[in-house]
């Protein structure tokens, strides 16, 4: 299949609505109100139906206004139920949006002979139609939806840039926001209004479930990748735009290799945000699952290395045979030996491992820490000598030079530990 300007417009439309949604989504995620986007975008159905019945046309403006009004009513009702009705916030959203959605379904069904309104257009949107409905602006022909979404995105951008400070404070600490003297409640309703506007402007393009995806997933992924609000907003916008592109490519080009003729681009865009989110969960630089696992692995390897070194040192002290280099070691042991050989901390001496001078230095430092801790625990923490080994074994890996000095000072620089073994000098 050839890439045409039509495909480009689909990606542009998807990216515009995704970015408009993602921008506000940052603050929904931080305020723990992600599901508000879901509630509002389902609940606008009766607003559309009533606007259609009143004006008797599918003109966009009345439909838009009707839907936005119902969206704002949804936010107010949810707030009312959870504040005055003391209903759990999740439950109040569930009650409000399912009821309004049901009302919308009934209205559309009852007026079926007058209304040519398809519920599907709310649930799935129609990217192809939106990309084909062109208007002329100056010398250019652009899709009408692109103009609308561009305006919405600009409004959202202005809102976020102008009220960045207020949004930041009220997202992280509403009480502080109130003491700082601006109205966090008013800000909340402006945000909700914009969420409603954005959801309504987006859903006949990408469908309301994708609105939810774009409001939550890019912001959530960005939240896992960065720790600063400013960069989180930027990253979420990038993720939103990339998902739109990947989604359309994935929906139109990839299926052809599998023998299908293509599928819903909007659905694939939602799926793409999901994949990016999973990637962020798994491979995020600091909070990602793999990076945390990697750090844990590194730590356990270091401890195993240090244990091997101090074990060899102890054997040298006792003058017994060295660790035999034959036999099949466990994977960890094999890795540990390989790394220590590379670092020239140990060497192979006729079938056995022995410490090199460099390894001996490291090992004596470790053992010094270990025995200092044992002495300290007996002297200062009044433990019995035979209770101290395990604790010292753990602490020795975490003791740096400064702490070691401090320990030695605290217990008056002894030469032998409680078991009578020599504490290696520095």
């Amino acid at each position, binding site marked *: 299949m050839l890439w045409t300007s039509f495909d480009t417009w689909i990606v542009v439309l998807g990216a515009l609505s995704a970015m408009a949604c993602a921008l506000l989504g940052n603050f929904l995620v931080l305020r723990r109100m*992600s*599901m508000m986007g879901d509630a509002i975008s389902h609940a606008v159905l009766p607003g559309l139906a009533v606007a259609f019945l009143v004006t008797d046309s599918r003109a966009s403006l009345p439909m838009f206004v009707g839907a936005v009004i119902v969206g704002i009513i949804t936010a107010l009702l949810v707030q009312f139920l959870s504040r005055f009705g003391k209903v759990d916030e999740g*439950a109040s959203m*569930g009650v409000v949006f399912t009821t309004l959605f049901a009302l919308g379904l009934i209205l559309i069904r009852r007026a079926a002979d007058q209304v040519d309104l398809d519920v599907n257009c709310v649930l799935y949107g129609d990217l192809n139609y939106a990309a084909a409905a062109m208007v002329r602006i100056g010398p250019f022909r652009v899709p009408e939806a692109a103009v609308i979404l561009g305006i919405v995105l600009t409004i959202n951008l202005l809102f976020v840039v102008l009220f960045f400070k207020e949004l930041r404070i009220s997202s992280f600490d509403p009480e502080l926001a109130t003491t700082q003297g601006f109205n966090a409640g008013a800000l909340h309703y402006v945000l909700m209004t914009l969420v409603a506007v954005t959801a309504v402007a987006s859903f006949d393009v990408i469908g309301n479930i994708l609105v*939810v995806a774009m409001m939550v997933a890019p912001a*959530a992924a960005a*939240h896992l990748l960065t720790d600063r609000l400013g960069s989180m907003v930027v990253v979420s916008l990038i993720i939103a735009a990339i998902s739109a592109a990947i989604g359309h490519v994935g929906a139109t080009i990839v299926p052809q290799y599998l023998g299908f003729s293509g599928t819903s681009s909007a659905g694939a865009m939602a799926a793409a*945000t999901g994949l990016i989110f999973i990637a962020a969960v798994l491979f995020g630089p600091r909070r990602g699952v793999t990076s945390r696992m990697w750090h844990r692995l590194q730590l356990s390897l270091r401890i195993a290395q240090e244990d091997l070194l101090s074990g060899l040192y102890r054997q040298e002290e006792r003058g017994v045979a060295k660790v035999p280099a034959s036999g099949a070691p466990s994977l960890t042991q094999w890795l540990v030996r390989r790394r220590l050989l590379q670092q020239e901390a140990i060497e192979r001496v006729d079938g056995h491992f022995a410490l090199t001078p460099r390894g001996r230095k490291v090992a004596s430092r470790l053992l010094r820490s270990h025995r200092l801790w044992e002495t300290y625990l007996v002297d200062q923490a009044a433990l019995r000598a035979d209770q101290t080994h395990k604790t010292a074994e753990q602490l020795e890996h975490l003791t740096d030079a400064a702490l070691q000095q401090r320990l030695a000072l605290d217990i008056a620089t002894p030469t032998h530990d409680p078991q009578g073994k020599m504490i290696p000098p520095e």
Partner: protein
Amino acid sequence: MILSHLLFSSLGQITTDLLLRVLFLDDYNTRVVVLGVMVLGLAGGVVGGYMLLRKHALLGDALSHSTLPGIAAAFMVMASFGGSGKSLPGLLLGATITGSAGVGCVMLIRRYTRLKEDAALGIVLSVFFGFGIVLMGFVQRMKAGSAAGIETFIYGKTAAMLASDAQLIALVALICVGLCALLYKELKILSFDPAYTATQGWPVLLLDGLMMAMVIGVTVVGLQAVGLILVIAMLIIPAASARFWTHRLGRMLVLSAVIGALSGWMGASISALLPRMPAGAIIVMVAAGAFVISLFFGQQRGVVARWVRYVQLQRQVGLQNLLRTCFELVETRQLQHDEDGHPRIPFNMLLEAKSWSPRYLRRLLKRADHDELLNTLPQAVIELTDTGMVEARRQAREHRLWELYLITHADIAASHVDRGADMIEHVLGTEMVLQLEKLLEQQSHPVVPATPHRI
């Protein structure tokens, strides 16, 4: 107006005959549908009750949306193996698998990232649904067989429910209600305090998993009946309505089941009576009606009940403040007394003592007069009765005891205790007063301690 016209226009078409036929379930189809959705409402009410208490109300939302890819994938698999693709058990199995995966993802995201439940739910529901739409796109373009029946999972097709569908719902409902009854104690303790449950040695993970399995079961069988979005309502609305009426779990669950079943019955009946009324949506609207009634008139947490309690408390606080002020005036001012020693207090003196408005004070006095705590005399003078004097003395005493307690035991400066004492004195019980007395060693009973600050 258009709304009401649309919603109620065909009421006139209902004949008595039709009404009776629907009410007594004469038609086979109506019988199947009504019984099916009633049982579904019942099971949704019970299971939803637990979900509400565990603050997982919206989990059903994520769950029901994440069944879509399973349904589409099951269709594709069955169709590509030469089947019709529309075999119900197969589709429901697919729905169960991806539904469970969705719930699992919510749990994993909450456990392994710093995101909260709301974001986890939003991501899972939208991304799974997105995948579902993608697969549906393939299904609709497949050559093998028509996929026309699959759409019904999104909006439901209550009116076309088959006896076998109703039986499946009944089976799942029976299992859920049976499990809830058998594990009542375990699930109860889990709903209120999971940490305590764990320390008591109950298998929290297993119980939680069981609860999730019940929600998945109800959602999956409900999909066909009322559709993907409205099944969420069956899990939330009856439970949230029942919560307004009682603080006891058992009663709440029963009530929630009753509301769910009644909504199902009324919704299905209305939809059978009137043309072009989608049953699923009507059921939700009936349940929403029950919710609104409960919201206002619920016995325990309803708005009206709470408002009445609030007004009563305010009234009591007002009276107690009035009496205490009277006592303070008797104590500090030279007042006239009648022959029996009842003090007389001019209205203006009371008005100056506190920041009451004249109107509010007049209302307080009227109420106190009605309770026979004082008599209103001509020339704007009031006279405390015997009960009034006893009450006034008691109020002042409790206030000052509390003040003394705050000074001696909570290290609060004498000039600051008045407000704190003011707020707490109205809720001090007799036992608390006795304890305070003990603490402060003010054993001689009728004595009112001197005030620790200037009145």
